[in-house]
C-alpha cells in the first residue's frame, strides 16, 4: 500500500491505456518518469520517519485532528529528482529542451541559495517562481512537483501507514498530512468513497454525500458530472464552496487489487478542464489547467 512501486505503476499505466482514450501517447512519458523515480530512490534511499506512537496517533485521529506530518526534504535530492524528471520531459519532446534548460538553471540557483533541507511550502514557492519566470506552464509544473513530492513523502511514511487508524477518520482532509484530496475511488467491492491523498498516499473512507472540503451535507448543493458515454470518472462538486474532486468508479472496470490513482488522475485530466470550464476550482489546490485553456486571456 501507498508506496509508488515501479511495477504497480507499470501495471496501472497498461490498464489506463485500455480504459482511457488518448492516454497511449502519454504512457511512455509517464512510464519514464516512474522509472526515473524508482532508480533515484534505489540510488538515494530515504530513511523512513520513525514509527509513530500508535496511542498518540489514534487519540489525535479519534479527536478529529489530522496528524499534519510533513517531513523536511533534502534540497539536493529534491533538485536532483526534478532534474531527472526534466530529462524525461526532454526525451518525450526534444522541442522543450530550451525551456527545461531554463528550469534546470533556476533549480541550480535554488539549490545554491537554500538551506540543506526544505519544506513543502518552500518547494511550492519554487514551483510558482518557475511558472512566473520561465515558460514552464502550470499543468506541467503541477505534474513535476506533485509527482516529486509524493515520491518523497511515500518513502518517508513507509512505516507510518501501518499504525494509522484511518478507519476512525471522518474528515475530508488527509489524516496523515492534512492535505485536501484531489481524487479518490468508488471501491469495486462495496462502492464506498475512498479518498486518496495526492501527497502522502494515505487512503481513507469518506461519507458518499458530503463535501470533503467544506463538510457540506446538503444534498441539493452536492452532485457530480460525467462525460456522456463514459461514466468511469465522476467529477464531484459542491455548490456551496464551488470546489471539485474526481472519483474513479472502480466498479466500472472490475479492477483487481489496489489502484494507483495518481496514474488515473493523469489519464483523466480532461475532467479537470471540464470542471474548470464549469466554474469549479480544485479543492486540493492542485491546478492542472492552464489559464489560457479556460479563457481567451493571455498574459
Amino acid at each position, binding site marked *: 500500500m501507498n508506496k509508488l512501486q515501479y511495477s504497480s505503476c507499470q501495471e496501472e499505466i497498461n490498464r489506463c491505456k485500455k480504459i482511457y482514450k488518448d492516454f497511449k501517447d502519454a504512457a511512455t512519458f509517464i512510464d519514464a518518469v516512474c522509472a526515473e523515480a524508482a532508480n533515484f530512490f534505489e540510488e538515494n534511499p530515504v530513511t523512513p520517519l520513525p514509527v509513530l506512537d500508535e496511542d498518540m496517533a489514534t487519540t489525535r485521529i479519534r479527536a478529529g485532528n489530522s496528524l499534519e506530518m510533513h517531513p523536511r526534504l533534502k534540497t539536493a535530492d529534491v533538485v536532483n529528482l526534478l532534474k531527472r524528471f526534466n530529462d524525461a520531459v526532454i526525451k518525450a519532446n526534444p522541442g522543450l529542451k530550451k525551456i527545461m534548460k531554463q528550469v534546470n538553471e533556476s533549480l541550480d540557483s535554488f539549490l545554491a541559495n537554500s538551506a540543506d533541507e526544505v519544506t513543502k511550502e518552500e518547494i511550492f514557492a519554487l514551483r510558482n517562481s518557475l511558472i512566473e519566470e520561465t515558460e514552464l506552464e502550470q499543468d506541467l509544473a503541477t505534474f513535476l512537483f506533485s509527482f516529486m513530492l509524493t515520491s518523497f513523502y511515500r518513502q518517508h511514511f513507509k512505516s507510518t501507514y501501518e499504525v494509522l487508524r484511518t478507519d476512525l477518520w471522518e474528515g475530508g482532509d488527509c489524516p496523515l498530512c492534512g492535505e485536501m484530496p484531489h481524487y479518490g475511488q468508488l471501491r469495486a467491492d*462495496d462502492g464506498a468513497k475512498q479518498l486518496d491523498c495526492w501527497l502522502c498516499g494515505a487512503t481513507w473512507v469518506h461519507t458518499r454525500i458530503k463535501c470533503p472540503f467544506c463538510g457540506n451535507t446538503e444534498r441539493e448543493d452536492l452532485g457530480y458530472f460525467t462525460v*456522456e458515454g463514459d461514466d468511469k470518472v465522476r467529477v464531484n462538486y459542491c455548490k456551496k464552496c464551488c470546489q471539485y474532486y474526481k472519483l474513479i468508479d472502480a466498479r466500472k472496470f472490475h479492477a483487481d487489487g489496489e489502484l494507483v490513482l495518481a496514474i488515473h488522475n493523469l489519464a483523466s485530466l480532461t475532467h479537470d478542464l471540464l470542471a474548470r470550464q464549469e466554474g469549479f476550482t480544485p479543492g486540493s489546490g492542485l491546478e492542472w489547467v492552464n489559464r489560457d485553456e479556460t479563457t481567451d486571456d493571455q498574459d
Partner: protein
Amino acid sequence: MDLTRRSFLKLAGATAAAATLTGVGLRKASASTDEPLRIKYTKEYFTVCTFCGVGCGVICNVRDGVIVNTEGDPDHPMNEGTLCPKGVAHYNVSYMFDEKGKPKPNPNRLTKPLRRKPGASDWEEMEWDEALEAIAKKFKETRDETFIEQENGVMVNRTDAINWLGSAFCNNEENYLFKKIISSSGIVNFDHCARL
C-alpha cells in the same frame, strides 16, 4: 501591463511552444474527435429500501428529475453498500427497460388507488380520500355484521370474516399501529408477507 520575464519571452516569441502536459502527450481535450464533450449532471439522494423491515440504505442517482440508478449505501450501518436481489432491482419499481435497453416509466407501477365497480370489467382511478373512506366503511360494516361476542358461553370478541395482511413495506411504527387496529377490531386472521 506588468512585463515579467515570462511575458517578455512570450512576446518576443523566444520559444516555439510553452512546456505543457500536451507537449509530452497528455491531452486534456480528446484528440480523436472534434466534437465537444458533453457532460451530464447527476445528484445522489439517500433513501431507505422499502422491501423489508431491515431498512437497508439506498443511494438514488437522479438526473433531470429521473432516477437513473439505485445502489446500496456504503455508509449505511445495516447493509454497508450491499443489497439483496430485490433491493438491487429497486430501480425497476419506477422504471423498466424497453426493447432498445432504454429506460421508460414502469407502466405496472400504481400511483393512484384503482377500483372496479360491481359488474364493470375495467379498473378506474379514484382519489385517496375517497378510497380510504370506502375501505373504512366496508371494514366497519363487515366487522359489525360478523362480530362474534360469545362462543359456547365463552367471550371471544372476534370476527372470522376479515383477513389482514401486513406488509414489509411498512415501517415499525406503522406495523405497531396495524397490530393495535387488528387486536381492537377482533381480527384473528392476520399474517405478514414475510419477505425476509
